[in-house]
């Protein structure tokens, strides 16, 4: 009752503010894309990719409004369907108030994107990078929900180090993270017989520190975050003590050329209790990639990367505990709104991107995958 009253007061207050405000600066942006994947062996990302699958659709729409010089509010609604993951519900990708005191200190509160590595915040915005799939060892698309956003707040800023020493950008957040039951991890829990009515969640905090060279060509940075999770249903529970994850990264751009590299360590030690039986599921993930892309002609970008992931807490010689992926990619921008991507993956190991339910006859150790995406953004 008290919560409803508070919500009502907040709604009336916000409506009043909105009605009294000039909405000429209101901005609406969005994106949508459609993918196709076909694989030589195995079914990838919970799709029937061995026959070719179009079950890869994503879209979002955002609305932002600057209330005044320092305060901005906004929300982005997002939906995705990747095989059996995601959809059909529309979810809040982020929703926040952003109070920027000056360049070196600002505050955001609400549902915020988690700062981690080079691409974490933009994982679900396909139009922003040349690749159909980001390096799956670090940015596994089926499990990205766990790293994407947190309910809480962050402080951020940009410190100028002088004309010849570049800028230092920082970002620190504190909040509640969650594991979406419609994600890859959620499906794995269901395979154990755990089907939590609400997403398991827990304390989530961390930060990112990056240095940018004076002309912005070179970025060096490091991120860390701690995530705990707890969930319970009638048949059992999930408990993950705070897991401390680290990322180190570098990005260099020079004209038409861009080089990126990252190293992540993600030691997760979740413990499942199913019908009274305790099942530890240790994952000590070590992942890295180097990538390069080059703008070959107006609108046309080509690139390649190698993505490497191993689970150090298990026998790393077994295909079930590693994933090594060579990738060749191209992207063509028809104009500033429409684009298309075509990408080949040569995948060794079965640790990333596969699940048992869509591969009932088992998995082969190697597979080749062709992924295509078309999309637009405005």
């Amino acid at each position, binding site marked *: 009752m008290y919560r409803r009253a508070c919500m009502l007061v907040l709604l009336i207050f916000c409506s009043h503010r909105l009605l009294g405000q000039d909405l000429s600066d209101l*901005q609406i*942006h969005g994106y949508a894309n459609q993918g196709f994947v076909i694989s030589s062996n195995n079914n990838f990302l919970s799709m029937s990719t061995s026959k070719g699958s179009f079950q890869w659709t994503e879209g979002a729409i955002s609305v932002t409004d600057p209330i005044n010089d320092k305060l901005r509010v906004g929300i982005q609604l997002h939906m995705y369907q990747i095989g059996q993951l995601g959809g059909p519900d529309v979810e809040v990708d982020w929703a926040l108030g*952003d109070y920027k005191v000056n360049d070196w200190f600002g505050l955001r509160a609400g549902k915020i*994107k988690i700062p981690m590595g080079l691409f974490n*915040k*933009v994982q679900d*915005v396909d139009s922003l990078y040349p690749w159909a799939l980001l390096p799956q060892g670090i940015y596994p698309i089926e499990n990205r929900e766990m790293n994407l956003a947190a309910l809480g707040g962050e402080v951020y800023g940009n410190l100028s180090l002088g*004309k010849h020493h570049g800028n230092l950008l920082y970002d620190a957040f504190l909040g509640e993270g969650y594991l979406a039951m419609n994600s890859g991890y959620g499906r794995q829990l269901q395979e154990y017989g755990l089907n939590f009515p609400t997403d398991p969640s827990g304390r989530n905090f961390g930060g990112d520190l990056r240095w940018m060279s004076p002309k912005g060509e070179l970025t060096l940075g490091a991120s860390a975050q701690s995530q705990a999770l707890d969930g319970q249903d009638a048949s059992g529970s999930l408990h993950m003590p705070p897991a401390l994850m680290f990322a180190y990264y570098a990005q260099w751009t020079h004209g038409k050329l861009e080089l990126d590299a990252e190293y992540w360590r993600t030691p997760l030690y979740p413990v499942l209790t199913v019908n009274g039986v305790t099942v530890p599921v240790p994952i000590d993930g070590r992942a890295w990639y180097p990538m390069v892309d080059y703008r070959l002609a107006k609108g046309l970008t080509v690139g390649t990367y190698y993505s490497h992931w191993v689970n150090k807490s298990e026998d790393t010689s077994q295909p079930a505990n590693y994933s090594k992926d060579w990738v060749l990619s191209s992207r063509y921008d028809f104009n500033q709104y429409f684009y298309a991507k075509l990408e080949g993956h040569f995948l060794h190991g079965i640790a990333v991107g596969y699940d048992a339910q869509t591969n009932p006859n088992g998995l082969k150790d190697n597979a080749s995958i062709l992924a295509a995406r078309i999309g637009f*953004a405005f």
Partner: protein
Amino acid sequence: MNRHVTTCALFALLFTAAIARGQDIVIIANPSVQISQISGAQLRKIFTGVRSRFDDGTRAVPVLLTGGPAHEVFLSKHIGDTAEEFQTRWRKLVFTGQGSMPRQFTSETALLSSVAATPGAIGYVSRPPEGNAVKVLSVVP
């Protein structure tokens, strides 16, 4: 007839390209902006969303053209981006909740009017403006 049209189109294309290559850009600002010159690095930071204030601490409001030769020359010369790269740079901020896109105008006349009317506004045009509704900033290395 077709050959004549093709020849005309080719000349028009070459002429536009020549203008774009040789064109200079004039940086303009609202008269409330206290500075008379700006460094190339600061200009880049303001137009890429890295900084939101001038060196004197006053708020900077970048405004843009939606496209055209002046827009492309400005991006190439002062930002080091193509139009697509620049768009992507801002969309990163927009789609992650970290920023709002600068106002964009389809004509230099509309951009000039906006800069003249908005305290802290900074923009660019292809030729020095007449009158004193806006001030011209010189770009220093």
